[in-house]
Each structure stands twice: as structure tokens, then as C-alpha cells.
């Protein structure tokens, strides 16, 4: 066979095979993996650049909004959003609310506060203190109850939210009641039971171990 093909031709064929092998190894063992690595590196870098750019843009936007946010923050601060839920202060406030709303009676129970974990609060190294509040109101009409609720929402330090509200008419306006009203008395016609959550934000350093206030 070598005689027919010729040594020269064989040498050329083997040389061509050799070049193919060398080129193949260069392409598939070096260039392609290298290309994959550089592609990956490029993608990572692109994502990092894009992330930093987005952060800068966000910060610039935030900077523009900062004045507005600062005002809102100041308002929250002034509204007792960062208060420690001082019970004596709450007692005074409930008395004022009762007077202003003109309800006949209001029995308020503020239970001990518990720490509730919120991610947003954690970010700022703060915690949320939540105290359940229960109010039993007796009034001449339901309008006084609504007023009580509204004043409580506006005047109470921190954030107050309703968990349940139950309003019930105690009796109908019959002749004796109408006579009592005419004589200047305020009969108890409506009763309300309101459960609320009182939330404020306190520094994490003030949280005691048993999470109760």
C-alpha cells in the first residue's frame, strides 16, 4: 500500500492529520473553554456594572425624594411613632378622648406589649412593639362612638389599627327614654366593643429579653 500511495503522500497525510489534531486541541481544549470563561466573566461584570448603576440611580432618586421623606418621617416622629408606649401617657390620652368624644363611659384595657419582628424594622436595627388595646364604650348614639374611634386614631402616639369592632343597640327610643332625654339625661342606647393594636417602633437596643413591655 505504501508503495502505491507513496511515502511523500503518506507524510503529507500524516502532517495534515497532525495539523488537524493540533488545531483541534487548540480550539476545543483552549479557545472554547477560554471563550466560555471570558463570556462568564463578562456577564458577571455586566451584571455588577448594571447593579451599581441601578444603585446610583436609586440613590439619586432617593436623594431627590429625601426632603419629602424627611417631612413624612418628622411627622411620624412627632406623632409618637418611636415612642415607648408609656402607659401613664396612654391613660391620660384615653381620658381626653372620652371627654372629647362625649361617650357616656369607656373602659379601656391596654395589655402588655410584645415585640414583633419585621424585616424593614430589622434593616434599621429597630423592632416593632405591639400592645393589644380593648375598649368597651357606652354612648347615647353611635356618632359618639365613631368620634371616639377617630380621635383615638389621630391622637394616639404611634399607629393604632382596628382588629374588631362590635356596635350594638341596647334599647329602642321608647316613651320613657324620650322623656329622659327631654329632662336632660343621656341614656345609654348604644354599646361598642373595640379591639385595637397599638404599634410603635423602638430601637433594638431597648428590647428586653422576654419581649414584654
Amino acid at each position, binding site marked *: 500500500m505504501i*508503495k*502505491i*500511495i507513496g511515502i*511523500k*503522500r503518506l507524510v*503529507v*497525510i500524516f502532517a*495534515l*492529520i497532525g495539523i*488537524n489534531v493540533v*488545531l483541534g486541541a*487548540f*480550539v476545543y481544549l483552549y*479557545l*472554547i473553554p*477560554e*471563550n466560555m470563561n*471570558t*463570556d462568564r*466573566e*463578562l456577564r458577571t*461584570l*455586566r451584571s455588577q*456594572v448594571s447593579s*451599581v*448603576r441601578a*444603585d*446610583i440611580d436609586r*440613590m*439619586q432618586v*432617593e*436623594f431627590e425624594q*429625601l426632603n419629602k421623606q*424627611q417631612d*413624612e*418621617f418628622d411627622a*411620624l416622629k412627632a406623632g409618637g*411613632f418611636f415612642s415607648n408606649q408609656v402607659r401613664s401617657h396612654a391613660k391620660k390620652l384615653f381620658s381626653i378622648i372620652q371627654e372629647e368624644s362625649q361617650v357616656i363611659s369607656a373602659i379601656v384595657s391596654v395589655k402588655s406589649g410584645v415585640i414583633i419582628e*419585621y424585616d*424593614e*424594622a430589622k434593616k*434599621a436595627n*429597630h423592632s*416593632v412593639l405591639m400592645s393589644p388595646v380593648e375598649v368597651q364604650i357606652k354612648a347615647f348614639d*353611635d356618632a359618639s362612638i*365613631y368620634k371616639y*374611634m*377617630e380621635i383615638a386614631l389621630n391622637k394616639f402616639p404611634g*399607629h393604632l*389599627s*382596628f*382588629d*374588631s*369592632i*362590635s*356596635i*350594638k*343597640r341596647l334599647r329602642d327610643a321608647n316613651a320613657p327614654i324620650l322623656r329622659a332625654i327631654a329632662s336632660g339625661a343621656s341614656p345609654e342606647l348604644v354599646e361598642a366593643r373595640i379591639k385595637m393594636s397599638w*404599634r410603635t*417602633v423602638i430601637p433594638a437596643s431597648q428590647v428586653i429579653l422576654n419581649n414584654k413591655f
Partner: protein
Amino acid sequence: MSLSFLTPSRTVLMICDEALFIYSTSAKGVKLVETVPWSVDDFEENVAGIISKDCGGKPVLIINDMVEQHYRKEKVPRVSIMDKQNVVKRKLKVAFPNYPVRAALPLKEKVSKTNSAMAGSIYIFAAVPATEAFAKTMGAARKSLASIVGFCLLPVESSDMIKKLSDKLSDRNSEKAQWTIFMGQHQNGGLRQIVIRNGELALTRMTPITENDDDAVVWAKDVHQEFKATMSYLSRFGYEKTDGLNVILISDAGTGDIVNELMTEPCNFHPLTLDDAADILKLPIGIQNTEYHADALHMAWSGRKSSFILPMKAKQIDNVSKPRQVASLLSVFLLLGIAFLGYQSFDYLQKNSENFNNIKNLGQKKSKFDLQYDKEVKRKEDLGYNIQLIQSSLALHKEFESQQINAFKLFYNIGRALGRDMRIDSIEVTRGGKGFYPNILRKNSKPPLFVADMQMSFPSNTNAEKGNQEVQSLQSRLQSVLPSHVVSVTKLLEDYEYSEEIVVETGSAKDAKPSQDYVAEISIEGPPK
């Protein structure tokens, strides 16, 4: 013919009875490199040396121009395409059992089916004996290491050249002649006559004649004599005077005229010099020593062909040509492989270079952005605000507010829906849905923010039907003023079972005391959380 840069450059070995004629053909023309007699010592080595050195190792085409060439017209019955090749091969073997070099050429002529015979195709079966000349030529080709393009018969491969020449010489207005006789003396002294009918080989003869240089008149008489002999054969092949006959003779300019004067047979006689014929065929043949030798024309024509009319088959040829063809093909594939891998290398090198540049640019960009980011952070820190506390506090307040039950809006809208005449006895608002089951039945997967249950009483003397209508009407009004809420009547005046899971009253309405008030209940589910 073909474009010059696509014209194959070859070494053509013309096997004659006296010697081997070695030609080199290229786009420029034909050159007789050497004539090697068969009797010369070390024939194979000498010829191999000429092929590899003097001819540059170009691919070799072997053309047989010996006297002993056998042709036979055979009919092959019509068979399926799959079987055709085997049938032809078998018939060829039967026709020429003692000749190892053979091949079959299908003709245009067909045989129609008759009562006594089957339909079939007509073939020319050709064969060449395995002579010493053939063996020596193959040995030389093997030793030269040049690749072998093919082994062909000169009359067959030149038949299309003769047809083209005949077509060019024919008068366009007159009817085309069916027969053409091409006569040309070769350098070995023999006069090769090739007869074609309708472009296909019909007959060929090789006869020795005197050289033109000795005496032109004698040469002309010899040629005419041989022509007459050929004409006597032609009638056996079905030639008739009405068919039309072109006669082409390659000769010196004056000698052709002498032959023309001798011609008595009715025909179109065209005496041409070698250059004239080459010009008509637009075939560059280069400078030749004589004008009357036709072999250079045959070599130029066959040497430039990309495919042959009748390539001869033989083991001796295959043994040499096949491995070399495989080696050549392998070389081509390997070269293609190199080209592909080279392209890939270039492509990936370019991509990598681009990537490196991009990485460098992006790295610089990132450094700039990092710097800018640090500046922005410092700028905020310099303001003295605890930005995180501000943002977290606002986010927390927003979250608390989103969970707030807007009781005032609810009570206001209930008041609007009730109007002046209706009143409720109690309302109970509780955060969240009424348990798991009702929540999964809701289209909206989110549970409601709150549920408000209203209870209202009607005096015992109320028309229950009218009362129910009032309750339904109130439900509609509530739904319209609270569009994002779900308002439903959970108990009508004369219903004793709640539409929901809690039964609050049992027994029959008929059993109830007449003084007892009717009670209706409506439930309002707040917007989803």
C-alpha cells in the same frame, strides 16, 4: 470547452502499438514530452521518472490507441434500475471473457418490443486485452506515484470532439449529415479513422500509411485508399447515401486538396490543418511540429475532460487508482478540516480578544461607577440623616396602613345605603375571613381584610315578603356603594337557616310566637388583603 483556470493539468499516456507517447496537457496547450518504445530497458522506471519529474507528477490519464481494441454492439433487455448494472456487467463478462479491461456504453438507440423480442437498450461493449504494453504502462504509473484519472479509449473519447467539429463545419441551411468520418495520422504513423453516427461511435480503424513528409501525393492516395475501405464497411453499418456524410481530414493545407480531388464518393469533405481544427474547437494546443498529425488534437481534447464517456474498468487500474483517490480525498478532507479549524481558531481568537477588550472597558467603567457610588453614599452620610431608619419607618407605616380596616368609610357607606327608613341593630366587624372553607371558595385566592356582619330586626307584623325585598334591595345598594366588597344576605326574614355554616335559629316560623320580631342578616366581606 472549460475556463482556463478550471482546466485540469494532466499527463496523458497514449498507448500505441510501437511505443508509449507521453503528453503533458494544460490550459496553454499540449506538449509531447517523450516517446518511449516498449522494448527499451527499464521501461517502467524511465516512464515513471518522466511522469514524476518531466511532467511534474500531474494526474495521469491513460488513452489507448492500439490497433487491438474490441467493440461489440449488444442489446440488453429492459430490466429494473437496480438490476441493470449487474445485467450489463454479466453480459459484458460473457461478451469478453478473456479481456480484463472492459466497459459498456449505452447508446441512444433503443429496441422496441415486438412479438418475438423484448424491449431493450443498445450498448457498445468495449474491451482491451491485457497486453504487455498495458502491464508496463500500469507499472510505470504505479511507480510514478501520480494519481490515475482514468483509462480510456481514444476513439470513444474523441467521438464528441468529432461531433462538435462536424456540427461547426456543417452548413446551417442544409440538412445535418448523420455520418461523420474523421481521419488523422498519428505520430506512430498509423491513420486513425473514427466514424460516428448521430454523435455516437459507429466504427474505428487504425491502419499504417506512409508519412506525409515523404511524398504528399502518395500520402493522399494512401489516405483515400483507406477511406474507400472504410466506406465499404459503412454499408454494413446501415449507411445510405441519403443519410449525409461529412469527412474531416487532418492534413497539410495542400495535401488536403489532393485528397479532395481523389474523392469520388458523395460527401462533404473538410480538409483541415491541426491548427484549423483546434481553432474551430477553440482548443489551445500550443505549437506543434507538424500540421498533419492529429494525435495532439485528441490529447488536448481528452486531457481537458472532467468526465469521460467510457472509463474502462479493470482490477489493475483500480489497484493503483483507488488507494490514490482515497488518499487524495483524505487529503482534501484534512485540508477542509484545517480550513474549518483555522476559521474556528480565528473566530474564537477574535471573540476572546473582543471579550478581553470588553472586560477591560467594563472594569474601568465599574471602577468609575464604584467611585460614584461611594461619593453618593458619602453625600448622604454627610447630610446627617439615618436614611435607613427614614426609609424603613416609612415602609413600616405604609405596611401598617395597608392592613388598616377603614371602618369610617364602611360605616359611612352603610349609613348611605340604609337611608332614612332602615336601621340596624348591631354590626360586628372582625379582621380576616370566616375560616378556611369560605376562603378557598373565593375566586380571589387572597382572604378578605375584614368581615362585617349586620343584623336588623323587623316588627312581627311586617309583611315578610316585602321585608325580604327590602333586605335584598339593601344588599344591592350596599354592593353598589361598596364595589370592591362582597355583600351577601345571610338570613332573610323567614329563613331559619343561615346561608353560611352557622345555624342561628331552629324550628318552624309557624311555631314562632306572633309577637316575635323578624331578623335579617347581611354579611360584607372587605376587599382582599
